[in-house]
């Protein structure tokens, strides 16, 4: 199944926040949390030589998502189309995903009595209802957010950089970050200036997590179980002493 993808162009975004409002309404997000927010460079430089860039930020929909590998109850899942979905029926609100996600995407409904996570899910219900685009992409007045197949979006990103090298830095954020994602960004300035996290590893933390949990733990468990049994039997064999005549004061007859 073809993967969905986003291309977000910081050179186009005017920080109008239509995408933020659209998301809140489409997904009925509680008034004190959000699934999408603006990252910006603020105004940099000295009057009158100034710059200012912004871009909306939401779930990257990683190829190998840390949140999915970490979620205590498997409430976060990866679809064949690359969408990372969230099952609010299963979630227990432990907030481990907030730590697992290198992009600090999952938000918690701090204002709710029974609080859950809220996270971009590509407007999956909207897509299933047959609407062409997620709410944020659909409404953007400058087409700073574009939606399509992951392949197309990546190609488009490189195409734009090639055609206007003076306009963009040569870096497609999301292509390799965290082991690759379905959300791609292009920008006139380095992404750390936009307040994006700098992700060195091209390997997703999920990978290391699996080593620890799916390989490490069983090995430790096996080793300990066997080791203990072995040692116990050995001890039994060598030491004949019955250990029944104990004095209540805990000292032993030798």
């Amino acid at each position, binding site marked *: 199944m073809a993967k969905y993808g986003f291309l977000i162009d910081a050179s186009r975004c005017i920080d109008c926040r239509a995408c933020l409002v659209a998301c809140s309404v489409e997904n009925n997000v509680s008034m004190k949390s959000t699934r999408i927010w603006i990252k910006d460079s603020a105004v940099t430089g000295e009057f009158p030589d100034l710059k200012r860039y912004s871009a909306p930020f939401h779930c990257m929909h990683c190829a190998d998502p840390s949140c999915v590998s970490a979620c205590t109850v498997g409430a976060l899942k990866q679809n064949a189309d690359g969408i990372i979905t969230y099952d609010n029926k299963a979630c*227990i609100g432990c907030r481990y995903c907030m730590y697992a996600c290198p992009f600090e995407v999952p938000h918690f409904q701090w204002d709710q009595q029974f609080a859950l996570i809220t996270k971009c899910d590509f407007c999956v219900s909207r897509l299933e209802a047959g609407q062409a685009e997620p709410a944020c992409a659909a409404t953007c007045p400058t087409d700073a957010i574009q939606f399509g197949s992951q392949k197309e979006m990546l190609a488009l990103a490189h195409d734009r950089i090639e055609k206007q090298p003076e306009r963009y830095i040569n870096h497609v954020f999301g292509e390799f970050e965290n082991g690759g994602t379905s959300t791609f960004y292009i920008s006139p300035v380095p992404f750390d200036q936009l307040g994006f996290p700098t992700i060195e590893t091209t390997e997703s*933390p*999920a990978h290391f*997590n699996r080593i620890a*949990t799916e390989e490490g733990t069983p090995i430790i468990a096996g080793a300990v179980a066997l080791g*203990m049994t072995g040692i116990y039997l050995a001890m039994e064999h060598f030491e004949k002493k019955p250990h029944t005549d104990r004095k209540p004061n*805990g000292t032993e007859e030798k």
Partner: protein
Amino acid sequence: MATVNLTIKPFKALEGLPRYVYVLAVITALGLLAGAYRLYAGLGVTTNLSTVFPWGLWISFDLTNVAFSGAAFTLAMLVYIFHMHDLHSAVRPTVLFGFLGYSSVLVILFFDLGRWDRFWHFLVYPNLSSALFEVSWCIAIYSGILAYELSPVFLDRFKNEKLSRIVEKITIGMVIAGITLSSMHQSSLGSLFVVQIHRLHPLWYSMMQPEFFLVSSLSAGIAAILIGSYASIWMFKQTLSEKVLEKLGSLLPWFLIAYLLMKVVDLFWGNKIGLLLTSGVYSALYVAELALMLSAAIWFSIKRLRASRQNALYGALIIATGIVINRFTITWFALSALNGVRYFPSWVEILLLIGVSSGVIVVYALIAHFFPVFSETLAVKDLPKHELAKLKIDQPVSGD
């Protein structure tokens, strides 16, 4: 004019229960009230947790607490696997301590969940790659096993010989299972941070975190026993013989050295030497922990020191400090606080924590009051004269 009699008249059954237990009971009640408020009002209002600081005091406490509660499996291993029967007298008080320690962890966790009403979900929605899932499972089952290991205490009281024998029989299987589960969740607690490679300070991040947690919990456990045996002199008029303490202490250097070696290996293989020199407060904390553990190792390798009740206590306290530094740095200072985010627990967070901890002592005292927890330990009054003198206890004292 009518006079009001203010002297508390406890039920017959509770006579002889130390006074402080009543005080702690009140504190516990207050703590649970704070907890109820949190459940009612939600985490946002009642805690100082936030999007940039989602885990706080409670999680840090839980992880530290589990390390100390490692006492139970460590001792079980020494006694039943390595046949150090002379340590047997410590088993019951320690197992009870472990059991209540884990229970308090579960209670705190319950209050920490956004959907506490779904605390049981981990039983029906497994995610095998989740460290937190493993932890939940192991702790749940292990608590059962501790309850089992504890059962003789109760069976004794009811003088149920037959049952006792059966229990005795399968004990060893249970013990091995318990040790296995413990090593699983102790290490899984370390695994929690393996995925947080972008969050945890690089100096403190390590793929060996699981092993660190596991091995350090051995020392933490023994330290807990040493401290506990000292505290119970005042709390329960019971303690362990210096002989037992000495034996336990003699094992610490090995555990500590093992831990230190692993840390050093990690420093070199993860080539963190540079980081160690440049990470300011995080380096300081790192060095502090290692220094404490090292000095403790040396301390306990000196027989004269570990053979003395007081000195054993001091050594144990050094280790405890190291453990606290380690767990709090990894769950707090070098994690969420990393980007200069300020967090100080709210009064609800603090009160609930104090309440639950007090609750642990209350329940411990009650069980010890009704059941033979201290059947094999030393009554303070039986301590040798020179010790009593050192402890400034004018004997003989009858349990009031």
